[in-house]
């Protein structure tokens, strides 16, 4: 993350740091997590990146999981919520057991717009958290909630994605200012949006090159941030498009390397 230092990580998250490990010299620990990404390693192994409930971001090796006979492999696919046992390694931890808590993948992968939205969520989760083994309980809960909502197919996948993006930024301390001026704090519905100032700005503070989105698009973003699905579902297509554009620009500004998969997100 860069720029903008508001309340970074709150107290409760830090206190939630509790690991079961170091029993009798064997560094074994148990946690649950969502698989964010897998990369091939050697002949048949994979490096699995997970966002866990207690440990935060973890990169671990799944041995032999690419063989079609591995029963393990199916559980360590992206979007899977798994209960894990891991062995602390020198560079990477090793997954010794994995039990599925819930496999979101199947319903997500059956629909292409849902799949691309969900992929952008996973990539964002990894890039927003960024630091390994630093507990981020609220980010974990947010991701689980978003995947569940996506799997239920009750809202436009793109809305679910945008809601996840603004909320996850806000949990990380980068909530966009929507109902006050990002610079001077003046309350009210302002007309200009400037990514680098942190959201909406008043006429006095408005920097050169600020965007002038439709008020409905900004209200939609605020509804997504609050979790007001009634208002969000009632929004019009053009405002959804504009809102997505603002959210994407805001996200890319705050993340150093950008989110590659956003480019491939499809509307339903």
């Amino acid at each position: 993350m860069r720029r903008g230092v508001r309340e970074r990580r709150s107290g409760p998250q830090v206190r939630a740091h509790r690991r079961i490990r170091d029993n009798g010299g064997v560094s074994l620990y148990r946690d649950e997590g969502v698989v964010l990404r897998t990369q091939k390693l050697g002949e048949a192994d994979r490096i699995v990146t997970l966002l866990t409930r207690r440990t935060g971001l973890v990169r671990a090796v799944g041995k032999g999981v690419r063989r079609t006979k591995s029963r393990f492999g199916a559980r360590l696919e992206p979007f899977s919520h798994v209960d894990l046992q891991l062995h602390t390694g020198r560079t990477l931890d090793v997954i010794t057991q994995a039990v599925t808590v819930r496999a979101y993948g199947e319903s997500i992968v059956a629909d292409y717009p849902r799949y691309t939205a969900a992929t952008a969520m996973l990539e964002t989760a990894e890039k927003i958290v960024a630091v390994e083994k630093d507990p981020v309980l609220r980010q974990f809960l947010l991701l689980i909630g978003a995947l569940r909502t996506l799997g239920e197919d009750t809202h436009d996948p793109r809305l679910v994605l945008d809601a996840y993006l603004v909320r996850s930024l806000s949990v990380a301390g980068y909530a966009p200012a929507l109902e006050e001026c990002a610079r001077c704090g003046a309350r009210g519905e302002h007309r200009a949006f400037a990514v680098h100032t942190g959201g909406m700005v008043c006429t006095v503070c408005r920097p050169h090159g600020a965007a002038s989105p439709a008020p409905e698009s900004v209200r939609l973003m605020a509804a997504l941030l609050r979790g007001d699905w009634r208002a969000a579902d009632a929004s019009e297509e053009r405002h959804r498009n504009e809102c997505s554009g603002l959210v994407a620009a805001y996200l890319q500004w705050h993340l150093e390397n950008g989110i590659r998969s956003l480019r491939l997100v499809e509307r339903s």
Partner: protein
Amino acid sequence: MYEGAVQNLIDELGRLPGVGPKSAQRLAFHLLAAETADVKRLVSALTEVKERVRFCAVCGNVSEENECRVCRDPKRDSAVICVVEESKDVVAIERMREFRGRYHVLGGAISPIEGVGPDDLRIKELMTRLSNDEVTELILATDPNLEGEATATYLARLVKPLGLKVTRLASGLPVGGDLEYADEVTLGRAFEGRRSLEF
């Protein structure tokens, strides 16, 4: 760090997929200790593969001619096209000796996180082949893992207006694996039990 040539070799080997710094070092010292004739054979195999092998103009499979062996074979059934991610999947299916149709090699799977979208695969080429009336069935044999499934979902939706029979390999293949690791029996069963995709 080693001196010039040795370090160079280690660096080059280390760029191969699945080869870490330690393996690269082990391979480099193995080559250093090997007979000159053995190393020369390896070098000529490398040079030859780059000079002679290319991708089939029709299906994208590796080939030493403009068209691959399967595409040149008049006895293969042109009505059925089996879509796979890579050439090594063609090898896995051919080993089974049951499939008599033709192939289409995509060159990977849709993976937004790696920046690979539909336009980065040989999908346009597939659509061109399908516009030919001869084809009646499309078998989606992408890997039985998440990206393979997503690619199949995408393709099924794309070809739907063409009214072809679209099938997906039976799920006897556990998800999470690579197709190339499937044994002949499992793969054979997956082909026999392939199911039609309904939308």
